[in-house]
């Protein structure tokens, strides 16, 4: 059994890699059908095997070991290895399932695209990279996966490379992620320096002893662990789009919609969350880091949700919603409610992928129109899309019983119980965020599917439901969006589902405290108890208010939003400008760096290095070489003379009388 399991572990990512290579290299030969058949089969295989691994892990069969040693440098081995436990098995199942759905969906969505094979090659490659990331048992492989998913994300955002906006967006994503990755790499370097190892288990077991070691950093005396956690969190801020490194995610919507669902909602952007959960033995040792994580997450959760209120592009609304939900997960990490954060990650993966794919389905029906102001009344022609979108929305806003309700409520409650600095602010931000979330979600729903149709007659006549390859994934994603929360709330939050893979110190254990507040029951009784409890708490009422407000503004009195925008024009403009992050980065940071670069280029490089050092040396060498070549006169007696001189030289130097 053990031997076989290792083979399965290897096969899960490798089947995706092989399929990606085949679809990428031989795409022309195998054709469109060949490309999607091979990648879908490979990902389906990965998914099935991931399920096997998942149940195997639940049965208590875990694995931590290296499969291949790449190099040993300075006593630190660089290895490829797998750590298969509850955390990674859950991620593997989620990643492969969503990926499979997206693969199938893509067959319909990208139907007429000339880059069909290339697209399948990329998403299969992404699945491989993401699996390597979550399965890793060491920091090097984590970094490899981290960079690889970033690379594929870059390639896919710029998939339509003829569009200037797509190129700008993928460059932006790449550059912003570089900032995060620099922090991440420094964090890994600090780990290698402090622990002399890159292996998770070695680092985690040595961490408690190293917790007290301090280091001066930027003039402040801090512990190594805090420094490491903060540096790693910088990486997570880039990858999981937390303020202020969030600016790339909305622009990434330039990529095809399946990508937005898979990479920029369900999986890659949650890599940062996963990483923090994985590093929980480190983060637990630094309350400073936890506080920072919580505050950053809370800022993202609330303020990004606000921007979602004023967006008109259907995908951008969902994108800001993703930012906000990532903020919720980050706050959960900061509150040491890792299990709740992971729980939300899983539920979010399903309902957000669902929402994106539903938005994609609308976009197909609208012939690639994305502005909600030109939609409306699509409920009738797109019944399946409408229904699944409603399910996704209810899950997102946390309607009792739907998956998002359980996970989001758990986070809010956990933050409420947290005693770390900043938890008060985080609690208010998250609770208020529920209202905003509800408002923009129902706004999207009302603007798109209800009300008077606002599109041209021409478009209107052609609007029809998407093909089955599109609707089947919607339905398949809608099912877990409803039930997964109820199904897993008990084991994941209170049942110690994640076992040893997450570590929480007793004094931080907000979920354990939370367990005291829920009814002491199991099964349906517990679910009902939690729902009842939830309905009495402020988030539920905020959600209701948000939904009603959206109804009033977009169905009942459609002229109201325009008036409000005029009346509160300062706020409206601030939101439309996304608080000016983009302008600040462009005008101050980008321009500043460019002008510094210009100075280095003109003076440092062109003048000093190229002018004096490189060309100067070359001139001197060339001149000298031209002179000494004349020693070679061609006369044999000159040659003999040189030999004699050489002989005498050696003798005078070395003969000591």
């Amino acid at each position: 059994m053990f031997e076989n399991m290792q083979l399965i572990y290897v096969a899960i990512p490798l089947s995706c890699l092989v399929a990606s290579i085949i679809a990428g290299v031989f795409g022309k030969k195998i054709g469109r059908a060949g490309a999607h058949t091979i990648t879908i089969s490979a990902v389906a295989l990965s998914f099935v095997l991931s399920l096997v691994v998942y149940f195997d892990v639940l049965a208590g069969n875990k694995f931590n070991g290296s499969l291949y040693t790449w190099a040993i440098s300075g006593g630190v081995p660089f290895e490829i290895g797998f750590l298969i436990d509850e955390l990674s098995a859950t991620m593997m199942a989620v990643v492969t399932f969503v990926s499979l759905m997206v693969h199938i969906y893509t067959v319909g969505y990208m139907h007429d695209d000339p880059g069909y094979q290339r697209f399948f090659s990329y998403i299969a490659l992404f699945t491989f990279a993401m699996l390597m990331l979550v399965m890793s048992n060491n920091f090097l492989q984590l970094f490899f996966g981290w960079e690889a998913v970033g690379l594929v994300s870059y390639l896919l955002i710029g998939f339509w490379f003829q569009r200037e906006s797509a190129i700008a967006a993928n460059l932006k994503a790449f550059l912003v992620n570089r900032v995060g990755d620099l922090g991440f790499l420094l964090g890994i370097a600090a780990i290698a320096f402090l622990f002399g190892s890159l292996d998770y288990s070695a680092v985690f077991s040595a961490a408690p002893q190293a917790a007290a070691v301090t280091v001066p950093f930027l003039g402040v005396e801090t512990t190594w662990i805090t420094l490491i956690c903060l540096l790693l969190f910088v990486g997570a801020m880039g990858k999981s789009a937390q303020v202020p490194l969030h600016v790339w995610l909305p622009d990434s919507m330039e990529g095809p919609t399946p990508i937005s669902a898979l990479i920029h909602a369900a999986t890659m952007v949650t890599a940062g969350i996963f990483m923090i959960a994985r590093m929980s033995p480190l983060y637990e040792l630094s309350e400073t880091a936890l506080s920072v994580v919580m505050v950053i997450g809370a800022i993202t959760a609330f303020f990004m949700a606000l921007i979602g209120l004023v967006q008109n592009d259907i995908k951008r609304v969902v994108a800001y919603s993703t930012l906000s939900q990532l903020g919720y997960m980050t706050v959960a990490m900061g509150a040491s409610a890792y299990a709740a954060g992971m729980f939300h990650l899983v539920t979010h993966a399903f309902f957000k992928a669902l929402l994106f794919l539903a938005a994609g389905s609308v976009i197909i029906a609208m012939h690639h129109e994305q502005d909600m102001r030109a939609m409306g009344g699509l409920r009738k022609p797109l019944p399946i899309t409408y229904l699944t979108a409603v399910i996704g929305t209810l899950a997102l806003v946390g309607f009792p019983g739907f998956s998002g309700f359980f996970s989001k409520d758990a986070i809010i409650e956990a933050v409420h119980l947290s005693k770390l600095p900043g938890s008060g602010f985080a609690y208010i931000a998250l609770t208020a965020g529920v209202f905003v979330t509800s408002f923009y979600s129902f706004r999207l729903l009302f603007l798109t599917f209800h009300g008077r149709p606002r599109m041209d007659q021409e478009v209107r006549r052609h609007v029809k439901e998407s093909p089955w390859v599109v609707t089947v994934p919607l339905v398949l994603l809608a099912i877990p969006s409803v039930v997964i929360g109820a199904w897993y709330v008990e084991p994941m939050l209170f049942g110690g589902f994640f076992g040893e893979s997450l570590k929480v110190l007793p004094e931080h254990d907000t979920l354990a405290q939370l367990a005291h507040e829920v009814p002491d029951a199991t099964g349906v009784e517990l679910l009902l108890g939690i729902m009842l409890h939830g309905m009495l708490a402020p988030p539920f009422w905020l959600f209701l208010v948000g939904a009603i407000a959206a109804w009033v503004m977009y169905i009942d009195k459609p002229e109201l939003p325009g008036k409000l925008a005029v009346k509160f024009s300062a706020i409206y403009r601030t939101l439309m400008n996304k608080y000016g992050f983009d302008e600040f980065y462009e005008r101050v940071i980008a321009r500043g760096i460019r002008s510094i670069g210009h100075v280095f280029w003109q003076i440092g490089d062109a003048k000093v290095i190229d002018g004096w050092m490189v060309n100067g040396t070359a001139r001197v060498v060339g001149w000298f070489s031209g002179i000494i070549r004349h020693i070679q006169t061609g006369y044999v007696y000159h040659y003999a003379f040189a030999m004699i001189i050489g002989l005498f030289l050696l003798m005078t130097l070395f003969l000591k009388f």
Partner: protein
Amino acid sequence: MNGTLNVTPAIPELFVFTMACLILVVDLYIRKEQRVISYGLTLLTLGVGALLSLSSFSAEPVFTFNNMFVDDALSDVVKIAICLITLVVFVYSRDYIEARGLYKGEYFVLGLFAVVGMMVMASANHFLVLYLGLELLSLSLYSMVAFQRDSALATEAAMKYFVLGALASGMMLYGMSILYGLTGSLDIPTVRQAVGGMSADDVVLIFGLVFVLVGLAFKLGVVPFHMWVPDVYHGAPTSTTLFIGTTPKIAGFAIVIRLLIGGLEDLHGTWRDMVIILAVLSIGTGNLIAIAQTNLKRMLAYSAISHMGFMLLGILAGTPTGYSAAFFYILVYAFMSLGAFGMILLLSREGFEADELDDLKGLNQRNSWYAALMLLLMISMAGIPPAVGFFAKLSVIQAIIDVNLVWLAVIAVLFAVVGAFYYLRVIKLMYFDPPDEGVQAIEAATDLKVVMGVNAWAVLLVLPWIGPIQQLCLTAVASVMNGFVS
């Protein structure tokens, strides 16, 4: 040593020598069109010579001819390398010498005599045997340079080579005679013992050492005893240049090891400083003057000078790893040099020598495969990773850093960077300059093309086996260091 004569250790030499005489006779009786028989016999001789050397391979030295001759790991590796490389030299040369009327039995026989000379050098355990081999090699080479009798350039080169070679031989012989006077023996192990009992500051001893060293320096072509190198490389028929530029370097390394390490290692402290001077001058001058060259053969001649300087770095380190690094370096160099000169032969045609740098212009457009091969060779010669030339440079530099000669390593690396210029210029000419008007297509025989391809790609493909090869080099030099204790 009793009265019986054990010739077993010398079988490779005896075989090649006998075959050379046989080919000389056979060649008299065949018609011009049948000359391929002599050619084939020559290749066969070299191949079998290599096999015989391989079969006698043993880590333990075997002495014969009254201890004048030794068969140890060093001699075997050197002999195998010499036979195989000479074999390739003749494969490369055939079309070229055929087109220039040099395709004669004598050419092959001279080549084989030179090979015998080099093999004797590799196995010499006695000053006179060593000198004998050296002179056999030199005389054969003088004739091979002059073989193109109607070429004024070749004749002039041969005259220069001969006159200066005679001078150098004289100096070396004089040095040996002084050592003989001091120690009363020409037998290398005996000399070693006697020198071990003397003061390292002994004036007469150092006097002798200087003369021996000058002789060696001339044969290797290091500054300031290098003046013959560019003129001979340039003037000789390219096939001969190819020969001079490859195997004699390996044989030269063998006698350096025999004399300096085998015989005079106790004077290491003294000759080390002399060799440092020679090495620095060679690396510097070779690389600097190479930049100013417009002729590819002359450029490669100066490159050879600088490469010999690099090889000396390993020798002067004075450690087993240093010697083995030098050995590795010289083997790699001979191999790269074989490819580079081979490429000139391949690009040459009847009545046209492709030996000017401008002849390489736009090679990529004319034949991208050959351009790629030349690119590999140039990268390797410049010492750019991952080509094997980089590892050769790395190991000698590592060796001198190990003995705390960091300043020397810095100089060597700086000049290697300067040297990279002229190798890269070749690449630039091939890939970025348009070809001249009216150049003809390149035609070459299939065997030549195949061997050339293998030769060039080997600079990359050999990488996985660098470890074992370096280990072999270490075994070879260790056999000398231990063997003479007998």
